[in-house]
């Protein structure tokens, strides 16, 4: 019999954790040794139970899946992290792999792909699903870019910050002593460089990257 693989499950939804546990444990090779619903819990448990593989949902409360992956990769070098995300491009795969993830899948995959990924990562290999690999290949850009906002000039950055804080073109043009037409030219160039189509999409991107903050009430 193949050697047992000890797994830590991290997902915000308890129903999903319990279901994945049953799906995995239908195969005797897999043993779920812990469950966590937040990033902090995941790091704490990983340190304690030293699993072979962590199956990590990216969108979890607290420090989030990316930061939890980074901390687990640092604290438990023998543990492999398989990240599961909803969207192919969000967060950017390259950033997650850089954070120390060994496997990367989307929630649109089926359980067969999850078990393949867990086995590969337990053997010390990397596993990236085909749709994500395609996205990564497409987004490869020259240089070692930390954030798409690095592509912006200083002037573009200024305009971007004002737009994403909700200022109108007229206010921006007054503040920067530029004509409204020039401000709009900067805006369209920004859209182009960042791959967005309008101000609201730009705002989503800026918030996701922590460039602009906007917080909900607690």
């Amino acid at each position, binding site marked *: 019999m193949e050697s047992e693989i000890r797994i830590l499950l991290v997902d915000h939804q308890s*129903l*999903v954790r*319990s279901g994945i546990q049953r799906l995995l444990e239908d195969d005797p090779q897999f043993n779920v040794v812990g469950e966590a619903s937040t990033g902090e819990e995941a790091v704490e448990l990983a340190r304690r139970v030293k699993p072979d593989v962590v199956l990590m949902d990216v969108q979890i409360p607290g420090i989030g899946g990316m930061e939890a992956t980074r901390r687990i990769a640092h604290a438990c070098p023998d543990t492999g992290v398989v990240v599961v995300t909803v969207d192919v491009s969000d967060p950017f795969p390259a950033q997650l792999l850089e954070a120390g993830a060994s496997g990367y899948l989307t929630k649109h995959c089926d359980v067969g792909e999850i078990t393949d990924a867990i086995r590969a990562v337990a053997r010390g290999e990397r596993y990236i699903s085909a749709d994500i690999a395609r996205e990564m290949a497409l987004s490869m850009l020259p240089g070692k870019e930390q954030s798409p906002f690095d592509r912006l000039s200083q002037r573009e950055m200024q305009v971007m910050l004002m737009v994403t804080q909700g200022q109108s073109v007229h206010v921006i043009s007054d503040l920067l002593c530029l004509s409204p037409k020039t401000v709009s030219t900067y805006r369209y160039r920004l859209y182009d460089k960042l791959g967005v189509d309008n101000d*609201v999409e730009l705002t989503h991107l800026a918030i996701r990257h922590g460039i602009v903050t906007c917080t909900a009430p607690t």
Partner: protein
Amino acid sequence: MALSRPFTRAEDNPVHVLLVDSRRLVRQSIQRLLSDSDYLAVTGEAASCDEAIRLARTCQPHVIILNLPGASVDVLDGARKLGRQFPDIRVLVLAEEADIIIQERLLQAGVAGCISSSCSLEELISAIDTILAGERYLSDALAQKLAERRLPGESDSPFDSLTHREMQILLLVVEGKNTRSIARALCLTQKTINGYRHRLLEKLGVETEVALTHLAIREGLIRIPQIG
């Protein structure tokens, strides 16, 4: 508001569930979890509300579980359509506890219950029991938040005054959709959509749609998770 016709379950006959979730892995997991229970049986799976509407005719579930993350037009309109076309099927929505505004709208639209998306299997079963008995199910946290909003001195959400149509357009605008795709999604002309967009800004007292997006986040209507 009580729901029509309480449901009585025949002995040895499980409750038929139609599960709606866009993510295959999540559908498979929840189905596997429920397969251990004698009480519930997943008899259909759909990736969207539109697919659920098509499936519900043939698989005739007792309960439809909607597990579509976030506040979106898909959830709001999907739940309304399901409620209109299948008045005898109970719809239970798994929602983030913080998404109060959308849950209130869903209950107004006729869903039988809203339960926290992080609930346990026991809580899910108890919610299904409640709605099959013909009652509404609200999670404790939601009930408390909704009650608090009705207390004097509590300020209303600025979105309370919006009509359903305005809410649909608001959700699409703050998602970053352009006029053309909103018009297509709602089967309206672009001119009508532009009229609504303009009116939304006016009604909510903001200058730009970015400011509108900030307002939607601050009021807890939508969330944009930060990465890294």
